[in-house]
């Protein structure tokens, strides 16, 4: 499939970037860091008004019927502006799971609400250090879910979660209405993610249809990872451009610091990481329905994590003292790099998944 953006896709990219640039609010983002349990409600309203919640959902469910390429372009813009909440990705994950594995009733109940953003979704697969446990400790029997899913992104605010659980013999995917479920808020270095432990205690849940639930979960995670990779690309590019602009302004020893090769070469290296990550992310999005979904998603994730980590790190360094202040806010990127690196499975996980694919073993 083509990895050239068509006119419509380009319009989505520039328009979302324009809107986000216009509403950038660093002060708000800084406040949120210290406010555990809050997200940027105005930011989320903007996502809903713009229809970004609906982009990749099917038309019959009130979505726009577009795909990961389009949502990916929005995610690049969102990443550049540092998202005010994780819901675009987490709600997509839930909608994607219901759309593929839910029955008519489950779809009818939730997809429209997720497309409009009236309801928020969270995906709860990980346990402890394992993004995708082979035998989850959360159990499902007789329509009830029990056990704790720790540190679920968006978990604090979500209305519905898709959970990977164990039914006594095998892994299963279930959806659970979170209205009666206990959440324990987690204080994080990046607080606007709504991270919380979900504590299930005989919570009513519904089985989703998946022959191999773990494989289905991996594929849901892979599609979310492709969106996150785009977000990382946006953040990485932004941090690189901030460094570039500073190097073109700040002087030392009678010249712009950008004229020192130690500075300019470092920024050129960042450019390389960003473009390789962008190419991988776009390729993965454009081929998300193909046979190489997992391989492509893993490559996108690895390249994007590397790009954002390096770009945020080097951008701070190239600013000197001003780069490490609270006010300048480069630490917002620093904080976000780790959050995005952990959500949707860390580098170690995706490296293993990728090598399993390449070496012909099962993930």
């Amino acid at each position, binding site marked *: 499939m*083509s*990895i*050239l953006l068509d006119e419509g896709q380009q319009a989505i990219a520039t328009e979302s970037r324009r809107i986000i640039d216009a509403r950038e609010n660093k002060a708000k983002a800084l406040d949120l860091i210290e406010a555990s349990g809050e997200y940027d409600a105005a930011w989320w309203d903007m996502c809903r008004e713009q229809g970004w919640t609906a982009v990749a959902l099917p038309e019959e469910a009130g979505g726009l019927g577009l795909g990961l390429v389009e949502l990916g372009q929005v995610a690049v813009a969102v990443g550049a502006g540092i998202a005010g909440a994780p819901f675009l990705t987490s709600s997509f994950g839930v909608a994607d799971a219901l759309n593929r594995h839910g029955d008519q009733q489950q779809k009818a109940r939730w997809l429209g609400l997720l497309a409009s953003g009236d309801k928020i979704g969270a995906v709860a697969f990980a346990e402890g250090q394992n993004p995708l446990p082979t035998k989850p400790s959360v159990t499902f029997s007789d329509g009830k879910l029990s056990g704790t899913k720790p540190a679920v992104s968006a978990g604090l605010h979500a209305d519905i979660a898709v959970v990977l659980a164990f039914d006594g013999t095998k892994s299963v995917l279930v959806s659970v209405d979170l209205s009666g479920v206990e959440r324990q808020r987690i204080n994080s270095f990046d607080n606007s993610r709504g991270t919380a432990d979900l504590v299930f205690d005989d919570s009513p849940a519904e089985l989703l249809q998946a022959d191999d639930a773990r494989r289905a979960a991996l594929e849901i995670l892979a599609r979310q990872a492709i969106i996150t990779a785009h977000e990382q690309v946006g953040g990485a590019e932004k941090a690189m451009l901030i460094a*570039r602009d500073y*190097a*073109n302004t700040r002087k030392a020893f009678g*010249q*712009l610091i*950008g*004229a020192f*090769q130690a*500075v*300019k*070469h470092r*920024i*050129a*290296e960042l*450019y*390389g990481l960003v*473009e*390789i*990550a962008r*190419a*991988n992310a*776009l*390729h993965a999005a454009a081929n998300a329905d193909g046979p190489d979904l997992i391989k*492509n998603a*893993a*490559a*996108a994730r*690895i*390249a994007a994590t*590397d790009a954002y980590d390096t770009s945020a790190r080097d951008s701070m360094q190239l600013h000197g003292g001003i780069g490490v202040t609270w006010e300048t806010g480069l630490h917002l990127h620093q904080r976000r790099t780790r959050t995005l690196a952990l959500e949707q499975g860390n580098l170690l996980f*995706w*490296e*293993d998944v*990728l*090598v399993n694919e*390449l*070496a012909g073993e099962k993930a």
Partner: protein
Amino acid sequence: MTDAYEAYRQKARSWLQSIESEFGREARRGLTEEQDLALGRRYQSAKYAAGYAGINWPEDFGGQGLSHIEKVIFESEEMKFGVPSVYFGISLGMPVPILMRYGPDKEFARERVIKALKGEEIWCQLFSEPSGGTDLAGLRLKAEQDGNGWRLNGQKVWTSWAHYSDYGVIVARTDPTVEKHKGLTYFWVDMKAPGVTVRGIKLAGGDSHVNEVFFDNVRVEDNQRMSPVGGGFAVAITTLMIERYIATDSGGFGPHLDLFVDLAKEVEINGRPAIEDGRIRSAIARNYAMRAGLDSITARAMLMMQAGMEPGPEGSLNKLVAVRSRQKLSELAIDLQGNSGMAFEPHAFVKEDWSASWLNAPTGRIAGGSDETLLNTIAERILGLPQDHRPDKGVPFNQIPA
């Protein structure tokens, strides 16, 4: 539109398959360089006859009059077969296209171009000198007026394939009293002319395809001049930029990653297959992600060209990123084999053999623009960062401290 290109690719592939037994990697095993070159000339002539030489060159110069896209398609297919085309890469890549464009005598140029396409004649590029390669405009070889022609005196170095070359393009200093890049003039030279001496330089990998070339009072006629007097720098830059998009290899022209995976399955670390070792897995995954990214960049560039657009500048990343990583992966591949990794076959192919790949990787980071030069180009041209401080700016060449 795209289907037509796919059909072209299929046709090219089946032609390549039809000549593989005669010219492919297996046919070349064990040949001396002279034999291999002779095979290469026959391959080039077969290519010409089949319509795969000069794919994007004008028909009246023996070309096919097709687009750049067909050329890149053919070359990316050709790369997989290990044919002996290396002797003609520079010749047909830069000097001959420049002759086609700037050659003063069209009939002469036409004759040369066709012979070069058929592999009968080879051209070299005489730019770099002992005084510096990156700083091209700092070259010293002199061209002095002599009646209605010129006399060349001085030395070039790193000239690839000069020992097999019939002709070359050369940049010389015609005026040392002006700023360095304003006193240069561009000529073509006959490599068999009296006063030209070619002396091979053995490279780190043990072979010697580069040379020193000495010019001792070599006569060139004024109709061998390919730029205005003092206008040689611009033509030199055009020479270096002529092929904006060439077929690239995200493996950095070293072995395919699959070969590394195979190796990691064969050998053991701590009594377990190396493919289960986290360090090896990480290296494989990182390499895959990097190569896949470069491949996608290339695929996107092809699509842009097919759509009549100019490909993005990110295409310039390939050599910088791929060769460095090939170098490191080759080191790791040798380490993986333990002491048996020390065994070395001097005639092994770089694309198949980790030791050959590793020993020859450093040249890939210098030739065709060093890593540092490429980083400067990205920083200045793409990102708009300032130029380096250049103390020789605005200074007449003969007043720059040596």
